[in-house]
């Protein structure tokens, strides 16, 4: 094996990002690394490229244990990386980008002519016909991506990591990129390919390794896998039986309708969908990364305005063009990336909880400090938020407790409809169960909740109804006994055929 990783472990405060992961890569192989957000793909890659220092385990390259401490060290060892966002400088020429840091010099000065000649030589095997003296920014993204690959190969030459390289390319450009990658495989490089486009994984790769929740699920030859099993591996459903018993309790009650979305959609984000939400109902939204599930939530909360359709409740249409209007309508939204969108890390637990409530009251009527304090302590006790006191900055809490603070903030507003995007991402198992328990508790009091999750057992456990999203379209609706890991996976994996509610049991 060219590269062998054994028992790689990396822990962040409050979360174990990688837990004893094994991975190996042969020379002349394209190896896909798959997993949902938070599965540990990027942590693994960052450990490999020296961006993170690992906590445990070993990495062996060419028979020698290595411990890269920085990207440039990893490069010198032979590990090069190309990211989704081209990590080159658009304001320099193609030649300057290719040879940055190794410019040929003459009498201490950079020799432009020799540099362009060398750059042309580097690009020779890649089938590009471009002027290397032009700015990189003038080239298409695909060309930039190939230039980035050429640079990584020239610098490293053993292992090439492609991290979502095709995310912003069209089909023709993807094919062009794949030709380049296949050519590099034939030259004996080991290539790690990260992508959430499963078609591309099947088209390009030799083997697949799936990560979930920081653990390796499986490594198999791509040819031996089919779509269905691959998605099962990525989303997981081993725990299904264990959680199913408790989940069915509130399955088949008839609920009065609270909200109805009709023809709601936005070009390029989600195709128009209809959805009705009952009072006290938990609606789950299932789908792979990039399927349109987060976009659905953003549309419902007015983060992005819908191009078509309307939302209505018993009293008529609800304007939902901005989050402000959504809040006024009694909606709440705990976004996927709580670190950047959910909490204000430097403010205290108390201030974070009071934030949305204050926003609704307006700046002219501040919430008295005593009341804020009472509110905070109330929720700290109710949600069992582990903090030394209410004045501690939220940034210092663990992931699970941060998530509870976000929940507390919305609960304090007492919304009628709460959207939770990946509420249990990156938090430990104990907190995970508590958050699910909380969801049950608040719907018991009549609140309606929409949960987006990439963990199937979680959806099976909490949702009364599951909407399956694929290719930016709501493709199936599962209810009651019809909700199981199997049916969800089947709906996600189904070949492209239109038709709603086809899977409803």
């Amino acid at each position, binding site marked *: 094996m060219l590269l062998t990783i054994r028992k790689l472990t990396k822990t962040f405060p409050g979360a174990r990002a990688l837990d004893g992961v094994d991975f190996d890569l042969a020379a002349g192989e394209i190896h896909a690394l798959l997993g949902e957000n938070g599965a540990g793909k990027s942590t693994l890659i960052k450990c490999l490229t020296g961006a993170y220092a690992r906590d445990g385990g070993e990495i062996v390259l060419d028979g020698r244990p290595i411990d890269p401490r920085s*990207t*440039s060290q990893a*490069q010198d060892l032979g590990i090069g990386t190309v990211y989704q966002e081209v*990590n*080159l*400088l*658009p*304001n*320099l020429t193609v030649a*300057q*980008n290719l040879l*940055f*840091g190794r*410019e040929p*010099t003459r009498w*201490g*000065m*950079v020799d432009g002519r020799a540099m362009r000649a060398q750059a042309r030589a580097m690009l020779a095997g890649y089938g590009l016909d471009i002027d290397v*003296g*032009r*700015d990189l*920014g*003038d*080239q*298409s*993204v695909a060309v930039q991506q190939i230039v980035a690959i050429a640079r990584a190969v020239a610098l490293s030459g053993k292992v090439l990591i492609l991290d979502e390289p095709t995310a912003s390319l069209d089909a023709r450009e993807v094919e062009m990129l794949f030709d380049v990658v296949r050519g590099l495989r034939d030259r004996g490089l080991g290539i790690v390919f990260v992508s959430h486009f499963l078609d591309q994984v099947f088209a390009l790769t030799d083997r697949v390794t799936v990560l979930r929740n920081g653990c390796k699920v499986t490594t198999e030859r791509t040819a031996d896998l089919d779509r269905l099993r691959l998605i099962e591996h990525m989303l997981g459903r081993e725990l299904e039986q264990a959680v199913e018993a408790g989940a069915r309790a509130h399955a088949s009650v008839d609920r009065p309708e609270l909200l109805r979305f009709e023809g709601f959609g936005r070009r390029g984000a989600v195709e128009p969908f209809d959805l009705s939400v009952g009072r006290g109902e938990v609606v789950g939204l299932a789908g792979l990364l990039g399927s349109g599930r987060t976009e659905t939530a953003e549309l419902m909360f007015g983060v992005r305005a819908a191009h078509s359709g309307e939302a209505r409740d018993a009293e008529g249409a609800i304007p939902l063009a901005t989050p402000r209007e959504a809040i006024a309508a009694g909606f709440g939204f705990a976004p996927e990336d709580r670190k950047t969108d959910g909490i204000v890390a430097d403010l205290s637990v108390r201030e974070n909880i009071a934030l949305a409530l204050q926003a609704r009251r307006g700046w002219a009527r501040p919430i008295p400090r005593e009341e804020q304090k009472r509110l905070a302590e109330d929720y700290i006790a109710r949600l069992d938020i582990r903090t030394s006191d209410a004045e501690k900055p939220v940034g210092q809490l663990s992931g699970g407790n941060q998530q509870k603070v976000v929940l507390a903030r919305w609960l304090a507003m007492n919304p009628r409809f709460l959207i939770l995007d990946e509420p249990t991402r990156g938090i430990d198992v104990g907190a995970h169960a508590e958050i699910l328990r909380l969801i049950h508790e608040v719907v018991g009091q009549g609140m309606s909740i929409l949960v987006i999750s990439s963990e199937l057992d979680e959806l099976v456990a909490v949702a009364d109804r599951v909407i399956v999203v694929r290719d930016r379209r709501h493709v199936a609706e599962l209810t009651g006994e019809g909700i199981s890991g199997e049916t969800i996976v089947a709906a996600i994996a189904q070949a492209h055929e239109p038709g709603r509610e086809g899977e409803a049991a």
Partner: protein
Amino acid sequence: MNPRLYPLAATVAIFLVACFLCWLQFPYMLSTRVAGNLLTDNAYLGIVAVGMTVVILSGGIDLSVGSVIAFSGVFIAVVLRDTSLHPLLVFALLLAITTAFGAGMGALIHHLAMPAFIVTLAGMFLARGAGYMLTIESVPIQHPFYDLIQDAYWLMPGKGRFTLIGALMLASVLAGMILVHRTRFGASVFALGGGEATARLMGVRVARTTVGIYAFSGFMAGLAGIVFSVYTGSGYPLATVGTELTAIAAVVIGGTLLTGGAGYVFGTLVGVLTMGLIQTYLVFDGSLSSWWTKIVIGALLLLFILLQKGLLRLSSGRGAAA
């Protein structure tokens, strides 16, 4: 033509048009006398603008340079008045101080991850204050060596004087061009201006480069201070207030992107000369208030910012379409 050359071409075109318009009205303006004076009068500005170009190319800003020039003049004047050191030795001492001062600011900017704006703003007050510490009044410089260099010039055909400080300015521009466009340090400067995170990934030594950039700006400010003291023959702590902003204007009019990552040192020279030309025109005209300089410079600045935005939109639009 490579699109990255457009702003520079625009700068040169505007300068040539301005020259032509001046010549139409006052044919004498295109004489070696006027040209010589243009270089001499703007020598200190040109030198400090070269340093500023490097800083702005890296995506930074250096607000301290005007104060550093004033401090330099005062330092030279006071040391020459109170000691018997040779001016050349004083120059070396001064350049060491201002370079270290710039390097210190660069180190703060990098290690504390502070915005360059705020660090160099502090530097601006510090340097101005240090000047006041030395003296609060204008100190004349009387030294035979100064008389020598003040009178050093080459008489061009047409009686124009090509002075030593004018030559020094052109040499600074040349040195800046080589440094920025022909060395690895220069490539690192552009890389930083293109994006620090990316630059780091590409192997730029960010700490070293940042310190080097502000040290260079400090050095150029010191050199400009020397030139300014030769030009005025005195040191005054209240001199060159706002010069840093004039230098920034010259850099932007010279076609350098204010957000960093694109530009040419040669453009800065043209920018300085354009601003000087406007001033000369007002002197020739005699009836217009000198504030017209500011108005024209303001209009030119606006024009260039719009031009750059337009080019940026053009190139990003094309990138998306391709």
